[in-house]
Protein backbone atom coordinates (compact mmCIF):
# COMPACT_ATOMS: atom_id res chain seq x y z
CA UNK A 1 0.00 0.00 0.00
CA UNK A 2 2.75 2.37 0.98
CA UNK A 3 4.34 2.15 -2.45
CA UNK A 4 1.38 3.99 -3.92
CA UNK A 5 1.93 7.00 -1.70
CA UNK A 6 4.53 9.38 -3.05
CA UNK A 7 7.36 9.83 -0.57
CA UNK A 8 8.43 13.13 -2.09
CA UNK A 9 6.31 14.68 -4.80
CA UNK A 10 7.40 16.95 -7.63
CA UNK A 11 6.53 20.04 -5.65
CA UNK A 12 9.04 18.99 -2.97
CA UNK A 13 6.45 18.00 -0.38
CA UNK A 14 6.36 14.79 1.61
CA UNK A 15 3.34 12.60 2.27
CA UNK A 16 2.47 14.55 5.42
CA UNK A 17 2.93 17.97 3.80
CA UNK A 18 6.40 18.66 5.13
CA UNK A 19 9.41 19.84 3.15
CA UNK A 20 12.56 17.71 2.85
CA UNK A 21 14.40 19.16 5.85
CA UNK A 22 11.38 20.03 7.95
CA UNK A 23 11.06 18.40 11.34
CA UNK A 24 7.74 17.31 12.81
CA UNK A 25 6.21 19.22 15.65
CA UNK A 26 8.14 18.51 18.83
CA UNK A 27 6.64 18.51 22.29
CA UNK A 28 8.93 18.30 25.29
CA UNK A 29 7.16 18.00 28.60
CA UNK A 30 9.17 17.89 31.81
CA UNK A 31 6.20 17.77 34.15
CA UNK A 32 7.01 15.75 37.24
CA UNK A 33 5.68 12.26 37.52
CA UNK A 34 4.80 11.40 41.08
CA UNK A 35 7.21 8.86 42.47
CA UNK A 36 9.94 9.26 39.88
CA UNK A 37 12.97 11.45 40.55
CA UNK A 38 12.72 12.85 37.08
CA UNK A 39 10.59 12.26 34.05
CA UNK A 40 9.90 13.65 30.64
CA UNK A 41 7.60 12.94 27.77
CA UNK A 42 8.63 13.70 24.28
CA UNK A 43 6.59 13.65 21.13
CA UNK A 44 7.93 13.97 17.60
CA UNK A 45 4.80 14.16 15.52
CA UNK A 46 2.80 11.09 16.43
CA UNK A 47 5.68 9.24 18.07
CA UNK A 48 5.34 9.55 21.79
CA UNK A 49 7.69 8.36 24.50
CA UNK A 50 7.75 8.75 28.26
CA UNK A 51 10.88 8.23 30.35
CA UNK A 52 11.09 8.04 34.13
CA UNK A 53 14.39 8.19 35.99
CA UNK A 54 14.91 6.84 39.50
CA UNK A 55 18.07 7.48 41.36
CA UNK A 56 20.92 7.70 41.96
CA UNK A 57 19.87 5.24 44.62
CA UNK A 58 21.11 2.11 46.28
CA UNK A 59 21.11 -0.84 43.91
CA UNK A 60 18.47 -3.48 44.50
CA UNK A 61 20.98 -6.22 43.93
CA UNK A 62 24.36 -5.87 45.57
CA UNK A 63 25.98 -7.79 42.76
CA UNK A 64 25.15 -4.91 40.43
CA UNK A 65 27.06 -2.25 42.33
CA UNK A 66 30.27 -0.95 40.84
CA UNK A 67 32.76 0.32 43.40
CA UNK A 68 33.87 3.48 41.63
CA UNK A 69 30.86 4.67 39.64
CA UNK A 70 27.10 4.39 39.30
CA UNK A 71 25.53 1.53 37.44
CA UNK A 72 22.96 2.51 34.83
CA UNK A 73 20.01 0.26 34.28
CA UNK A 74 17.74 0.81 31.29
CA UNK A 75 14.46 -0.97 30.76
CA UNK A 76 12.35 -0.45 27.70
CA UNK A 77 8.68 -1.22 27.45
CA UNK A 78 6.86 -0.95 24.18
CA UNK A 79 3.12 -0.63 24.57
CA UNK A 80 1.28 -3.22 22.47
CA UNK A 81 -1.11 -0.52 21.27
CA UNK A 82 1.74 1.70 20.04
CA UNK A 83 1.79 0.30 16.50
CA UNK A 84 -0.77 -0.45 13.84
CA UNK A 85 -0.50 -4.19 14.21
CA UNK A 86 -1.15 -4.89 17.84
CA UNK A 87 1.63 -7.23 18.81
CA UNK A 88 2.75 -8.21 22.24
CA UNK A 89 6.49 -8.24 22.54
CA UNK A 90 7.96 -10.25 25.31
CA UNK A 91 10.48 -8.69 27.67
CA UNK A 92 13.22 -10.98 26.40
CA UNK A 93 12.80 -9.91 22.77
CA UNK A 94 16.31 -9.42 21.39
CA UNK A 95 15.36 -6.24 19.55
CA UNK A 96 14.14 -4.64 22.74
CA UNK A 97 17.20 -5.81 24.64
CA UNK A 98 19.45 -4.29 22.00
CA UNK A 99 17.42 -1.10 22.07
CA UNK A 100 17.89 -0.85 25.82
CA UNK A 101 21.60 -1.54 25.62
CA UNK A 102 21.95 1.13 22.91
CA UNK A 103 20.35 3.71 25.20
CA UNK A 104 22.46 2.53 28.10
CA UNK A 105 25.76 2.76 26.28
CA UNK A 106 24.82 6.14 24.80
CA UNK A 107 24.28 7.67 28.21
CA UNK A 108 27.04 5.89 30.14
CA UNK A 109 29.78 8.30 29.05
CA UNK A 110 27.50 11.34 29.27
CA UNK A 111 26.29 10.87 32.82
CA UNK A 112 28.97 11.73 35.37
CA UNK A 113 28.74 8.30 36.94
CA UNK A 114 31.98 8.72 38.89
CA UNK A 115 30.17 11.08 41.26
CA UNK A 116 27.92 8.29 42.52
CA UNK A 117 29.97 5.23 43.41
CA UNK A 118 28.11 2.10 44.47
CA UNK A 119 24.75 3.41 43.36
CA UNK A 120 22.33 2.80 40.55
CA UNK A 121 20.40 5.01 38.16
CA UNK A 122 17.29 3.40 36.70
CA UNK A 123 15.93 4.64 33.42
CA UNK A 124 12.53 3.33 32.41
CA UNK A 125 11.51 4.04 28.84
CA UNK A 126 7.92 3.61 27.74
CA UNK A 127 7.07 3.84 24.08
CA UNK A 128 3.45 4.95 23.89
CA UNK A 129 3.02 5.62 20.20
CA UNK A 130 5.23 4.72 17.28
CA UNK A 131 5.31 6.65 14.06
CA UNK A 132 8.95 6.54 13.05
CA UNK A 133 11.98 7.84 14.90
CA UNK A 134 11.42 5.83 18.07
CA UNK A 135 15.11 5.71 18.98
CA UNK A 136 15.39 9.45 18.42
CA UNK A 137 12.43 10.15 20.71
CA UNK A 138 13.74 7.77 23.38
CA UNK A 139 17.15 9.42 23.47
CA UNK A 140 15.78 12.96 23.59
CA UNK A 141 13.33 11.97 26.32
CA UNK A 142 16.06 10.28 28.36
CA UNK A 143 18.24 13.40 28.18
CA UNK A 144 15.41 15.55 29.49
CA UNK A 145 14.36 13.07 32.16
CA UNK A 146 17.93 12.86 33.46
CA UNK A 147 18.20 16.64 33.49
CA UNK A 148 14.88 16.78 35.32
CA UNK A 149 16.13 14.30 37.89
CA UNK A 150 19.13 16.52 38.52
CA UNK A 151 21.63 13.92 37.35
CA UNK A 152 24.83 15.72 36.27
CA UNK A 153 25.39 15.36 32.52
CA UNK A 154 28.39 16.44 30.48
CA UNK A 155 26.19 17.59 27.64
CA UNK A 156 22.82 17.15 26.04
CA UNK A 157 22.36 14.22 23.69
CA UNK A 158 20.10 15.19 20.81
CA UNK A 159 19.04 12.57 18.31
CA UNK A 160 17.44 12.82 14.90
CA UNK A 161 16.65 10.41 12.06
CA UNK A 162 17.54 11.02 8.47
CA UNK A 163 16.75 9.13 5.31
CA UNK A 164 17.42 9.31 1.62
CA UNK A 165 14.83 9.11 -1.12
CA UNK A 166 16.26 8.95 -4.63
CA UNK A 167 19.34 10.99 -3.68
CA UNK A 168 17.22 13.53 -1.79
CA UNK A 169 18.03 13.56 1.94
CA UNK A 170 15.15 13.98 4.38
CA UNK A 171 14.89 14.46 8.11
CA UNK A 172 12.65 13.09 10.87
CA UNK A 173 10.97 10.20 9.07
CA UNK A 174 7.53 8.79 9.78
CA UNK A 175 6.85 5.03 9.83
CA UNK A 176 5.61 5.23 6.27
CA UNK A 177 8.89 6.73 5.14
CA UNK A 178 11.01 4.47 7.34
CA UNK A 179 9.49 1.39 5.74
CA UNK A 180 10.49 2.53 2.26
CA UNK A 181 13.75 4.38 2.75
CA UNK A 182 17.17 3.66 4.14
CA UNK A 183 17.43 5.61 7.36
CA UNK A 184 20.03 6.54 9.96
CA UNK A 185 19.60 7.70 13.54
CA UNK A 186 22.30 10.09 14.67
CA UNK A 187 22.76 11.51 18.17
CA UNK A 188 24.97 14.55 18.62
CA UNK A 189 26.47 16.28 21.61
CA UNK A 190 25.85 19.89 20.66
CA UNK A 191 28.65 21.46 22.71
CA UNK A 192 31.36 19.79 20.65
CA UNK A 193 29.25 18.89 17.62
CA UNK A 194 30.48 15.31 17.83
CA UNK A 195 28.30 12.32 17.19
CA UNK A 196 27.93 9.80 19.97
CA UNK A 197 25.49 7.43 18.34
CA UNK A 198 25.05 6.34 14.76
CA UNK A 199 22.65 3.54 14.06
CA UNK A 200 21.67 2.26 10.67
CA UNK A 201 20.16 -1.06 9.67
CA UNK A 202 19.29 -0.55 6.02
CA UNK A 203 21.40 -0.51 2.90
CA UNK A 204 22.74 2.89 1.88
CA UNK A 205 25.54 4.01 -0.41
CA UNK A 206 28.59 5.49 1.29
CA UNK A 207 28.29 8.85 -0.49
CA UNK A 208 24.65 9.24 0.55
CA UNK A 209 25.59 8.29 4.10
CA UNK A 210 28.09 11.11 4.27
CA UNK A 211 25.48 13.63 3.21
CA UNK A 212 22.90 12.46 5.70
CA UNK A 213 25.39 12.29 8.56
CA UNK A 214 26.33 15.95 8.14
CA UNK A 215 22.73 17.01 7.74
CA UNK A 216 21.62 15.12 10.83
CA UNK A 217 24.43 16.77 12.78
CA UNK A 218 22.98 20.17 11.95
CA UNK A 219 19.43 19.08 12.72
CA UNK A 220 20.63 17.86 16.13
CA UNK A 221 21.64 21.45 16.85
CA UNK A 222 18.12 22.66 16.09
CA UNK A 223 16.60 20.06 18.41
CA UNK A 224 19.12 21.07 21.07
CA UNK A 225 17.84 24.65 20.99
CA UNK A 226 14.29 23.46 21.60
CA UNK A 227 15.34 21.14 24.39
CA UNK A 228 17.48 23.75 26.08
CA UNK A 229 14.61 26.23 26.00
CA UNK A 230 12.36 23.70 27.74
CA UNK A 231 14.97 22.92 30.41
CA UNK A 232 15.57 26.65 31.03
CA UNK A 233 11.87 27.33 31.32
CA UNK A 234 11.40 24.47 33.73
CA UNK A 235 14.37 25.59 35.85
CA UNK A 236 13.14 29.17 35.79
CA UNK A 237 9.77 27.96 37.03
CA UNK A 238 11.45 26.11 39.88
CA UNK A 239 13.67 29.07 40.81
CA UNK A 240 10.67 31.40 40.73
CA UNK A 241 8.80 29.04 42.97
CA UNK A 242 11.68 29.10 45.45
CA UNK A 243 11.82 32.89 45.24
CA UNK A 244 8.09 33.09 45.76
CA UNK A 245 8.50 31.22 49.03
CA UNK A 246 11.11 33.70 50.23
CA UNK A 247 8.99 36.62 49.20
CA UNK A 248 5.97 35.49 51.22
CA UNK A 249 8.12 35.26 54.33
CA UNK A 250 9.46 38.73 53.54
CA UNK A 251 5.91 39.99 53.34
CA UNK A 252 5.14 38.34 56.64
CA UNK A 253 8.06 40.16 58.25
CA UNK A 254 6.91 43.44 56.72
CA UNK A 255 3.46 42.82 58.06
CA UNK A 256 4.86 42.15 61.53
CA UNK A 257 6.91 45.32 61.39
CA UNK A 258 3.81 47.25 60.39
CA UNK A 259 1.83 45.67 63.22
CA UNK A 260 4.32 46.70 65.91
Amino acid at each position, binding site marked *: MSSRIEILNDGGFRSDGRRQYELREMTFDMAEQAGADGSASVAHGLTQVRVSVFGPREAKMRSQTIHDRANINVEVGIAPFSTGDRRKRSK*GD*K*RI*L*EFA*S*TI*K*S*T*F*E*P*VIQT*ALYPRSQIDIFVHVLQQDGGVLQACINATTLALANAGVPL*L*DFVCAVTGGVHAAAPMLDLTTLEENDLPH*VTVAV*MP*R*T*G*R*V*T*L*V*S*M*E*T*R*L*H*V*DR*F*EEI*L*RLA*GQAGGVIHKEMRAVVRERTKGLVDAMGAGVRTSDFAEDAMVADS
Partner: protein
Amino acid sequence: MRPPSPSIPEKEFLFSTLEKSLRLDGRGLIEMRPLELTFGEELGHVDCTLGKTRVLAQVDAKMVRPLPERPFEGIISVHSEISPMASPEYESTGRPSDEEVALSRMLDKVIRRSDAVDREALCILAGQRVWHLRLTIHCLSDAGNLLDCACMAGMVALRHFRRPDVEVIGDEVTVHPPSSRAPVPLSLHHTPFSLTFALFAPSSSHTNISSQTAPITLLDPSLLEQRLASGTLSLALNAQRELCVVHKAGGVPLTPEEVLSAVNIAVQKAKELEKMVDARVREDWAMKKIEVR
Protein backbone atom coordinates in the same frame (compact mmCIF):
# COMPACT_ATOMS: atom_id res chain seq x y z
CA MET B 1 33.24 -16.44 37.55
CA ARG B 2 34.54 -13.71 35.31
CA PRO B 3 38.31 -13.36 35.27
CA PRO B 4 39.53 -10.11 36.76
CA SER B 5 39.60 -7.16 34.40
CA PRO B 6 42.98 -6.26 32.87
CA SER B 7 45.45 -5.14 35.49
CA ILE B 8 46.52 -1.51 35.76
CA PRO B 9 50.06 -2.10 34.37
CA GLU B 10 48.58 -4.00 31.43
CA LYS B 11 46.22 -1.13 30.77
CA GLU B 12 48.88 1.53 31.04
CA PHE B 13 51.25 -0.40 28.82
CA LEU B 14 48.61 -0.75 26.13
CA PHE B 15 47.77 2.94 26.27
CA SER B 16 51.42 3.97 26.13
CA THR B 17 52.08 1.78 23.09
CA LEU B 18 48.99 3.08 21.33
CA GLU B 19 50.36 6.59 21.79
CA LYS B 20 53.24 5.53 19.57
CA SER B 21 50.83 3.91 17.10
CA LEU B 22 52.04 0.44 18.02
CA ARG B 23 49.94 -2.56 18.82
CA LEU B 24 50.85 -5.40 21.12
CA ASP B 25 50.73 -8.00 18.36
CA GLY B 26 52.83 -5.93 15.96
CA ARG B 27 50.03 -4.94 13.62
CA GLY B 28 49.45 -1.52 12.14
CA LEU B 29 46.52 0.47 13.47
CA ILE B 30 44.25 -0.42 10.59
CA GLU B 31 45.57 -3.87 9.88
CA MET B 32 43.44 -6.95 10.37
CA ARG B 33 44.71 -10.23 11.74
CA PRO B 34 45.23 -12.87 9.06
CA LEU B 35 41.95 -14.32 7.95
CA GLU B 36 41.81 -18.00 7.19
CA LEU B 37 38.93 -19.95 5.74
CA THR B 38 38.82 -23.72 5.89
CA PHE B 39 36.01 -25.45 4.08
CA GLY B 40 34.59 -28.73 5.24
CA GLU B 41 33.69 -31.80 3.23
CA GLU B 42 30.07 -30.71 3.11
CA LEU B 43 28.83 -27.65 1.25
CA GLY B 44 28.14 -24.72 3.53
CA HIS B 45 30.53 -25.79 6.26
CA VAL B 46 33.13 -23.12 6.96
CA ASP B 47 35.69 -22.71 9.68
CA CYS B 48 36.74 -19.08 9.84
CA THR B 49 39.70 -17.93 11.90
CA LEU B 50 40.76 -14.37 12.48
CA GLY B 51 43.99 -14.61 14.43
CA LYS B 52 43.05 -16.84 17.31
CA THR B 53 39.35 -16.09 17.12
CA ARG B 54 37.61 -19.05 15.57
CA VAL B 55 34.03 -19.50 14.41
CA LEU B 56 32.38 -22.43 12.69
CA ALA B 57 29.39 -21.83 10.44
CA GLN B 58 27.17 -24.41 8.88
CA VAL B 59 24.25 -24.06 6.49
CA ASP B 60 21.62 -26.66 5.80
CA ALA B 61 18.45 -26.49 3.79
CA LYS B 62 15.19 -28.32 3.96
CA MET B 63 11.85 -27.97 2.27
CA VAL B 64 9.01 -26.48 4.24
CA ARG B 65 5.66 -24.85 3.73
CA PRO B 66 6.13 -21.05 3.43
CA LEU B 67 4.79 -18.58 5.95
CA PRO B 68 1.19 -17.67 5.04
CA GLU B 69 2.02 -13.94 4.88
CA ARG B 70 4.95 -14.53 2.50
CA PRO B 71 3.97 -17.36 0.16
CA PHE B 72 6.66 -16.58 -2.45
CA GLU B 73 9.65 -16.32 -0.17
CA GLY B 74 12.00 -18.84 1.35
CA ILE B 75 12.90 -18.73 5.02
CA ILE B 76 16.31 -17.98 6.48
CA SER B 77 17.02 -18.46 10.15
CA VAL B 78 20.26 -17.72 11.93
CA HIS B 79 21.12 -19.46 15.16
CA SER B 80 24.04 -18.35 17.22
CA GLU B 81 25.17 -19.07 20.68
CA ILE B 82 28.21 -18.10 22.65
CA SER B 83 29.11 -20.98 24.89
CA PRO B 84 31.61 -20.91 27.75
CA MET B 85 33.84 -22.84 25.37
CA ALA B 86 34.68 -19.63 23.47
CA SER B 87 36.07 -17.89 26.52
CA PRO B 88 35.67 -18.20 30.29
CA GLU B 89 34.06 -14.75 30.05
CA TYR B 90 30.82 -16.27 28.90
CA GLU B 91 28.64 -18.11 31.31
CA SER B 92 25.95 -20.54 30.34
CA THR B 93 23.13 -18.96 32.29
CA GLY B 94 19.58 -18.76 31.09
CA ARG B 95 19.46 -15.08 30.23
CA PRO B 96 21.30 -14.09 27.05
CA SER B 97 24.28 -11.88 27.85
CA ASP B 98 24.84 -8.48 26.25
CA GLU B 99 27.48 -9.93 23.95
CA GLU B 100 25.11 -12.63 22.83
CA VAL B 101 22.33 -10.16 22.08
CA ALA B 102 24.77 -7.95 20.18
CA LEU B 103 26.06 -10.89 18.16
CA SER B 104 22.70 -12.30 17.21
CA ARG B 105 21.32 -8.88 16.32
CA MET B 106 24.38 -8.08 14.21
CA LEU B 107 24.09 -11.39 12.35
CA ASP B 108 20.41 -10.74 11.83
CA LYS B 109 21.08 -7.27 10.45
CA VAL B 110 24.01 -8.31 8.26
CA ILE B 111 22.52 -11.48 6.83
CA ARG B 112 18.76 -11.03 6.90
CA ARG B 113 17.92 -7.34 6.99
CA SER B 114 20.46 -6.36 4.36
CA ASP B 115 18.77 -8.78 1.92
CA ALA B 116 21.99 -10.63 1.21
CA VAL B 117 20.16 -13.75 0.08
CA ASP B 118 17.52 -13.53 -2.60
CA ARG B 119 14.61 -15.02 -0.72
CA GLU B 120 12.31 -15.28 -3.68
CA ALA B 121 14.82 -17.50 -5.44
CA LEU B 122 14.31 -20.00 -2.61
CA CYS B 123 10.69 -20.52 -3.60
CA ILE B 124 9.97 -23.87 -5.20
CA LEU B 125 6.19 -23.94 -5.52
CA ALA B 126 4.35 -20.74 -4.59
CA GLY B 127 2.46 -21.17 -1.35
CA GLN B 128 3.36 -24.86 -1.17
CA ARG B 129 7.07 -25.48 -0.90
CA VAL B 130 10.05 -23.25 -0.20
CA TRP B 131 13.59 -23.79 1.03
CA HIS B 132 14.29 -23.12 4.65
CA LEU B 133 17.95 -22.21 5.15
CA ARG B 134 19.32 -22.70 8.61
CA LEU B 135 22.60 -21.03 9.41
CA THR B 136 24.18 -22.15 12.64
CA ILE B 137 27.09 -20.23 14.09
CA HIS B 138 29.31 -21.91 16.64
CA CYS B 139 31.77 -19.64 18.40
CA LEU B 140 34.73 -21.86 19.16
CA SER B 141 37.20 -19.38 20.55
CA ASP B 142 37.09 -15.68 21.30
CA ALA B 143 40.37 -13.82 21.09
CA GLY B 144 38.72 -10.52 20.29
CA ASN B 145 36.38 -9.29 17.59
CA LEU B 146 34.11 -12.29 17.60
CA LEU B 147 31.45 -10.20 15.86
CA ASP B 148 33.36 -9.73 12.60
CA CYS B 149 34.56 -13.30 12.57
CA ALA B 150 31.03 -14.64 13.06
CA CYS B 151 29.58 -12.43 10.31
CA MET B 152 32.37 -13.43 7.97
CA ALA B 153 31.84 -17.13 8.72
CA GLY B 154 28.10 -16.79 8.17
CA MET B 155 28.39 -14.98 4.85
CA VAL B 156 31.11 -17.28 3.51
CA ALA B 157 29.06 -20.32 4.52
CA LEU B 158 26.17 -18.95 2.47
CA ARG B 159 28.48 -18.35 -0.49
CA HIS B 160 29.92 -21.83 -0.19
CA PHE B 161 26.59 -23.58 0.24
CA ARG B 162 24.80 -25.13 -2.71
CA ARG B 163 21.31 -26.50 -2.56
CA PRO B 164 20.17 -29.59 -4.46
CA ASP B 165 18.68 -28.89 -7.86
CA VAL B 166 14.91 -29.24 -8.01
CA GLU B 167 12.65 -29.75 -10.96
CA VAL B 168 8.99 -28.75 -10.93
CA ILE B 169 6.60 -30.26 -13.44
CA GLY B 170 3.06 -29.16 -12.72
CA ASP B 171 2.62 -29.82 -9.02
CA GLU B 172 5.26 -32.52 -8.96
CA VAL B 173 8.56 -31.61 -7.27
CA THR B 174 11.63 -33.73 -7.97
CA VAL B 175 14.80 -33.23 -5.96
CA HIS B 176 17.94 -34.28 -7.78
CA PRO B 177 20.65 -35.59 -5.49
CA PRO B 178 24.14 -34.14 -5.96
CA SER B 179 25.22 -37.38 -7.58
CA SER B 180 22.92 -36.90 -10.55
CA ARG B 181 22.88 -33.13 -10.97
CA ALA B 182 25.32 -30.48 -9.77
CA PRO B 183 23.87 -28.59 -6.82
CA VAL B 184 23.11 -24.92 -7.47
CA PRO B 185 24.59 -22.00 -5.52
CA LEU B 186 22.27 -19.63 -3.66
CA SER B 187 21.50 -16.40 -5.42
CA LEU B 188 23.09 -13.68 -3.34
CA HIS B 189 22.49 -10.00 -3.93
CA HIS B 190 25.73 -8.94 -2.28
CA THR B 191 28.18 -10.00 0.41
CA PRO B 192 28.35 -7.66 3.37
CA PHE B 193 31.41 -7.81 5.62
CA SER B 194 31.38 -6.61 9.16
CA LEU B 195 34.32 -4.48 10.31
CA THR B 196 34.73 -3.32 13.87
CA PHE B 197 36.86 -0.42 15.02
CA ALA B 198 37.88 0.03 18.63
CA LEU B 199 38.07 3.64 19.77
CA PHE B 200 40.48 4.93 22.37
CA ALA B 201 40.14 8.37 23.84
CA PRO B 202 43.35 10.34 23.29
CA SER B 203 45.73 10.10 26.26
CA SER B 204 45.99 12.66 29.08
CA SER B 205 42.23 12.49 29.42
CA HIS B 206 40.81 9.01 29.31
CA THR B 207 37.82 10.19 31.22
CA ASN B 208 37.22 13.56 29.66
CA ILE B 209 35.10 12.79 26.64
CA SER B 210 34.76 16.35 25.43
CA SER B 211 38.46 16.79 24.61
CA GLN B 212 39.28 18.16 21.20
CA THR B 213 41.98 15.79 19.93
CA ALA B 214 41.03 12.91 17.68
CA PRO B 215 40.64 9.50 19.28
CA ILE B 216 42.78 6.54 18.24
CA THR B 217 40.97 4.12 15.95
CA LEU B 218 42.01 0.48 15.68
CA LEU B 219 40.63 -2.02 13.21
CA ASP B 220 39.91 -5.58 14.35
CA PRO B 221 40.62 -5.24 18.09
CA SER B 222 42.15 -8.11 20.02
CA LEU B 223 40.56 -9.25 23.27
CA LEU B 224 42.61 -6.91 25.45
CA GLU B 225 42.09 -3.95 23.15
CA GLN B 226 38.40 -4.67 22.97
CA ARG B 227 38.10 -4.77 26.73
CA LEU B 228 40.02 -1.56 27.31
CA ALA B 229 38.51 0.40 24.43
CA SER B 230 36.24 3.28 25.24
CA GLY B 231 33.71 2.46 22.58
CA THR B 232 33.48 0.57 19.31
CA LEU B 233 32.19 1.39 15.87
CA SER B 234 30.81 -1.53 13.89
CA LEU B 235 30.26 -1.17 10.18
CA ALA B 236 28.97 -3.72 7.72
CA LEU B 237 29.41 -3.01 4.07
CA ASN B 238 29.92 -4.69 0.73
CA ALA B 239 32.44 -4.23 -2.04
CA GLN B 240 29.94 -2.07 -3.95
CA ARG B 241 30.43 0.69 -1.36
CA GLU B 242 27.04 0.16 0.23
CA LEU B 243 26.80 0.38 3.99
CA CYS B 244 24.40 -2.15 5.49
CA VAL B 245 24.86 -1.61 9.19
CA VAL B 246 26.38 1.22 11.17
CA HIS B 247 26.35 0.78 14.88
CA LYS B 248 28.06 3.09 17.27
CA ALA B 249 26.44 3.53 20.62
CA GLY B 250 28.09 5.74 23.19
CA GLY B 251 31.80 5.56 23.81
CA VAL B 252 34.08 8.33 22.63
CA PRO B 253 32.12 10.83 20.57
CA LEU B 254 33.49 11.32 17.06
CA THR B 255 33.30 14.19 14.64
CA PRO B 256 31.45 13.38 11.39
CA GLU B 257 34.84 13.50 9.61
CA GLU B 258 36.25 10.82 11.89
CA VAL B 259 33.24 8.58 11.25
CA LEU B 260 33.62 9.06 7.51
CA SER B 261 37.34 8.32 7.54
CA ALA B 262 36.59 5.03 9.32
CA VAL B 263 33.99 4.31 6.64
CA ASN B 264 36.56 4.96 3.93
CA ILE B 265 39.04 2.58 5.54
CA ALA B 266 36.29 -0.01 5.76
CA VAL B 267 35.46 0.42 2.07
CA GLN B 268 39.04 -0.50 1.13
CA LYS B 269 39.06 -3.48 3.48
CA ALA B 270 35.71 -4.74 2.20
CA LYS B 271 37.06 -4.74 -1.34
CA GLU B 272 40.11 -6.73 -0.28
CA LEU B 273 38.00 -9.20 1.68
CA GLU B 274 35.59 -9.66 -1.20
CA LYS B 275 38.47 -10.54 -3.53
CA MET B 276 39.94 -12.98 -1.08
CA VAL B 277 36.68 -14.71 -0.21
CA ASP B 278 35.72 -14.98 -3.84
CA ALA B 279 39.04 -16.61 -4.70
CA ARG B 280 38.86 -19.06 -1.80
CA VAL B 281 35.28 -20.16 -2.56
CA ARG B 282 36.11 -20.67 -6.25
CA GLU B 283 39.24 -22.62 -5.41
CA ASP B 284 37.30 -24.94 -3.13
CA TRP B 285 34.56 -25.50 -5.67
CA ALA B 286 37.13 -26.38 -8.30
CA MET B 287 38.51 -29.02 -5.96
CA LYS B 288 35.07 -30.51 -5.37
CA LYS B 289 34.33 -30.98 -9.06
CA ILE B 290 34.32 -34.58 -10.13
CA GLU B 291 34.48 -35.27 -13.80
CA VAL B 292 31.82 -37.66 -14.99
CA ARG B 293 32.68 -39.58 -18.09
